[in-house]
């Protein structure tokens, strides 16, 4: 059974009189342990797809299944509970809580879950180290560079041992070198720890070492490259 199963997913946005068809029937399967990129120009529906996969929004048609359970029709509270328990997120910007230090941010999801202080700190510290951020634990977000902030965001996501990390254009605000660095870090996490990553990007240069790429255009899957378990 796939980790993620997306069938005929549709989503339309209405702003005033204007209708935007963001997704027009997307089918997708993600297996456990994958490192997959969703690529496409802006407006192709990448973010929408990730949001729907993360139960941050509801589709207008089709379904999303996570480990066999439908997550596209959950109520607000249920969806939040599910996200907290099983998903990790990295967003394009504003990931970190400004009043918390790097280690506190990294531990945030664990704290939301009610994990005890000692264990929480241990996991957060270890996650930060995996992202090369030892020594930066007590820095506040405004004392970190953009790239460092995103690394803390990834640390937060993995510290909580999620089923999958969904990263929506995590490199969009970074320069290409830093962005590449981030993707490489994510890939090594995937390889060393088996963390499943799905991230979106419109920058083709980042796709060089990505094993599976799903190309989206106009809300549909154009084509796929590579496949599950492609090394």
């Amino acid at each position, binding site marked *: 059974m796939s980790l993620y199963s997306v069938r005929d997913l549709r989503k339309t946005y209405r702003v005033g009189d204007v209708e935007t068809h963001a997704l027009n029937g997307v089918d997708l399967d993600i297996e456990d342990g994958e490192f997959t990129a969703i690529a496409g120009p802006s407006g192709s529906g990448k973010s929408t797809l990730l949001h729907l996969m*993360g139960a941050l929004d509801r589709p207008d048609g089709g379904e999303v299944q996570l480990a066999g359970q439908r997550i596209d029709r959950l109520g607000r509270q249920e969806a*939040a509970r599910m996200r907290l328990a099983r998903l990790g997120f990295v967003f394009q910007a*504003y990931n970190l809580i400004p009043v918390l230090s790097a280690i506190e941010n990294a531990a945030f999801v664990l704290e939301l879950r009610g994990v005890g202080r000692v264990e929480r700190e241990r996991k957060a510290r270890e996650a930060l180290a995996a992202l090369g951020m030892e020594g930066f634990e007590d820095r506040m977000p405004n004392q970190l560079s953009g790239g460092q902030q995103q690394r803390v965001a990834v640390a937060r996501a993995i510290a909580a041992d999620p089923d999958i990390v969904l990263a929506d254009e995590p490199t969009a605000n970074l320069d290409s070198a830093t962005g590449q660095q981030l993707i490489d870090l994510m890939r090594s996490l995937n390889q060393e720890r088996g963390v499943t990553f799905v991230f979106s990007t419109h920058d083709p240069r980042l796709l060089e070492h990505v094993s599976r790429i799903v190309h989206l255009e106009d809300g549909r899957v154009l084509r796929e490259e590579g496949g599950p378990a492609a090394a």
Partner: protein
Amino acid sequence: MRLVTYLAWRNLWRHKRRSFITAGAVATVTFMSIAYFGMGGAAENGLYQTLTETSGHVQVLAPGWDQALRLEDALIDDAAGVRSSIEPVAARLLEAPLIIGVLEVPALLSGEDRSRGVALHGQDWSDTAGERRLGGGQLDGRLPSANDEIVLGASLARALDVGTGDEVYAYAPGGQGLGAAAFRVVGIADLADPNAEIVAAWTTLEAMQMLAAPGAVQRFEIHGTRLFHISDDTVAADLATELDAALPGLLALSWLEVSPSTARMLRTLEPMMYAVSVMFFVLAGLLVLNTVYLSVMERIREFGVIHALGAGDRRVLAMIATESVLMCLLGAVVGGAGGSVFVAAYSGGLVIEPLIEYYASFGMKPIFYLSVSPGQVGFALVFAFVTALAAALWPAWIASRLEPVEAMRFQV
């Protein structure tokens, strides 16, 4: 909860000036509320003291006293006997009680060529009775000590065109006494209340008894000379109840029962103070609302992420509510402490110069002995808490119901 609390605390420090100003507003309002309660307490005590000074804490009266048209309709005939029944009871319940028998006789009072209808007031003048009747007014001369001596209010003396040493004549026919008497003016009283001054004609009880009703009084006033605070007053009600039982055929009323309109006015004082305090807090609450709303709007994207991570609506609401509560309680504690210090400092008496004349026209001394009850301080603190919650309600609700995706895309 710990997370919510320390997040709230840190967020307050994020915008120090704003938080301080808002907390400061709550502090100010709390201070003002307590100061206001203090003044209200002072007014109550002042009113209490003024009223009981001139009328005593308990009065013994004949039935029908409030409807009697003629002097003889409501007299206590065996004054001496009734007094001896009152004395032991009063001595037991009150510290240093003063028992004053009063007989007021409507009469024509005449100077050399001018006359006026007055109610001649006869009473015992021993001890502090004179001081209490004067109630803070001035006496030029002395109080009557013999049955042919009289003290007149300054404006009455002017109306009759007499001064100290002059003779005045009282004519009160139709009673049981002599019906006429002559007096020598031994004192002129300058009373704070002009309405009392124009009818003030004070003489001895015996003189009045001889004039119109031998051996009788209209009432006994029992003064508790050591009762200063209205909170001490329960003993007056007890005394009234006991005397009522001990004196069949007569009425014993506490000062509140004698003057129900005053009782009503006093009863409205406290609710009014609370109402004003609530108004203060509502105004402060508007400022708090503004501050919290602003801080929520500034952080919408942040809240979007927090929702996305799965924090849950209730927790987000709690975050904002806690911020508001912490900010307001801080202000309330500071303001409450300040207010309490202020009241304590002036519990010995605060004089407000411009109010002196205004208060004197009611016969009241314009010295405020501030006092608050712990309950009132508690109310102020609790209401600050309530304000904090109420003000945060709407912004917190908004934040808790944000859609993560839209929130993260929010453009300020």
